[in-house]
């Protein structure tokens, strides 16, 4: 039924989403906490900075990432010097691109959730001797679980569906950067609607299963 190329694209998409979302959460959790806790001007500026990528179309973000990754530009040159390989047309590049693009979708629900957490419980937890990590695991995580679920869902699903950035910096290389969203786009462009429908359905099915797992657990 499904050809090997389509399957490879789906597997790659899942891998990209899993890696990006994991890294994103690691980055977004402390960031969101800082944004809601701090009243400094720096925090307000960062809040805006995080939201900014939102207003540019993904392909344009991809375009700017393309410029940033360029060996002629400082960041790209640094990366090349450090790792010996280029970020463009690589899985690592896609991960970075997806993270830049999905960051606000992960930070915002977390930040809103943290803002509503009863800070008195943290005071209590600190006096009871819980360290930072325990406070996070035993107080913040369970009490903000809706926020975490929201952040995870938005981040994961958004990365699965990510397309504009990947299109720009990916290069459509099978097994490396040819993710499912690109494959569906290709099919539509070729007016191969049957293939597009099939791939779309598979993506939706995967999403339903993933969401069921999250929301099913959440409400119990």
């Amino acid at each position, binding site marked *: 039924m499904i050809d090997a190329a389509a399957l490879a694209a789906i597997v790659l998409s899942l891998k990209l989403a899993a890696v990006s979302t994991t890294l994103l959460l690691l980055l977004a959790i402390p960031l969101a906490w800082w944004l809601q806790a701090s009243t400094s001007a720096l925090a307000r500026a960062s809040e805006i900075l995080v939201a900014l990528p939102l207003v540019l179309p993904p392909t344009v973000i991809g375009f700017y990432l393309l410029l940033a990754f360029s060996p002629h530009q400082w960041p790209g040159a640094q990366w090349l010097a450090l790792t010996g390989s280029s970020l463009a047309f690589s899985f690592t590049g896609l991960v970075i691109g997806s993270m830049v693009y999905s960051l606000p979708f992960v930070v915002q629900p977390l930040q809103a959730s943290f803002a509503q957490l009863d800070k008195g*419980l943290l*005071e*209590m*937890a*600190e006096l*009871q*001797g819980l360290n930072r990590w325990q406070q996070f695991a035993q*107080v913040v995580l*369970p*009490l903000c679980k809706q926020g975490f679920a929201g952040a995870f869902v938005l981040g994961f699903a958004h990365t699965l569906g990510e397309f504009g950035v990947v299109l720009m910096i990916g290069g459509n290389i099978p097994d490396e950067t040819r993710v499912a969203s690109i494959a569906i786009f290709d099919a539509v462009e070729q007016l191969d609607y049957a293939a597009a429908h099939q791939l779309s359905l598979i993506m939706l099915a995967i999403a339903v299963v993933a969401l069921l797992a999250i929301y099913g657990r959440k409400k119990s």
Partner: protein
Amino acid sequence: MNGWHINLLTLPQQPDLTLPTEGVTVLFGQSGCGKTRLLRALAGLDPHRGNISFRQQRWLSGTQTLAPAARKLGMMFQESRLLPHKTVADNIVLGQSIPLPAQLIDALDLTHLLHTRANQLSGGEQRRVALARTLAHQGQAILLDEPLTGLDAERKRNALALIKAAGKEKPVIMVTHQLDELLHVADHLMLMDKTRLCDGQLQALINHPLLVQQRGHAFSILCGEVKPSANGFSTLLLDDGQQIRLVGKQHITERGIAIDARDVSIALTRANDSSILNIVKVRIQSLGDADAAYATLELALGRQTLRALLSGHSIRQLGLAPGQWVYAQIKGTVQI
């Protein structure tokens, strides 16, 4: 060494005091006067300026502050602050690597609730869990912000006994509005209003205006040698040789007894046919304002002072006068 040295410039009372190393210090004052703020300052939860040290540790020095966790304090907040998703058992040992404190749990009647999640508790149950958690805390001192609100009389009695016991192990500061709680557990007292904070032994402050204003009438505290219980009585031997006898299971402690001035009446002769157990001979020191409806008399009982609240009518009728020897009948006592 001492318990706390406290000198805070950032509270309106600008407290500057030293609290004892052990026993229960009760912090007493009207609603809104700043009791919770003081406890929070001790716990390091708000920014402050001044000096706080505990034993040999500097907790606050200028604006340099030791982190709350490093102060190693058990604190019961005015709100219960339980983790709603955890069971009672998990809440009690939260953050402390200790076994479940079975005795505390039993005394606070929480055994049947151990596996209940905290968000399913009644208000008073929450208070008891929070108290158990705080008393089980392994830290070097305990702060209790109105720990007994919402408890019924029976639970309150048990909780008071636990707090008193905790004070034997480490210093406890407890906020309360209730006089009976104060009398039962206070070794030391901090009296607060919006601008002042003074502290001292319970004995010294028992008739401080800030306290009397709240409860409406005076108290006496009588101390003496305690004689062990014999045929149902404990006896407090006063310095002039007279005795106060108390019936029942509870025995007089070394700290003495508190007597509400309302519970003392005066007779000119010793009644031999009365059920009142304790009749002592006293000399009237002062009559107070005998023209008022009520007056508080001060009565010399050996080297101690007993106070009696009488109606002006009775004072006039009995023709009481300073210097006169009379008999004081003591009905109720509180063992402190």
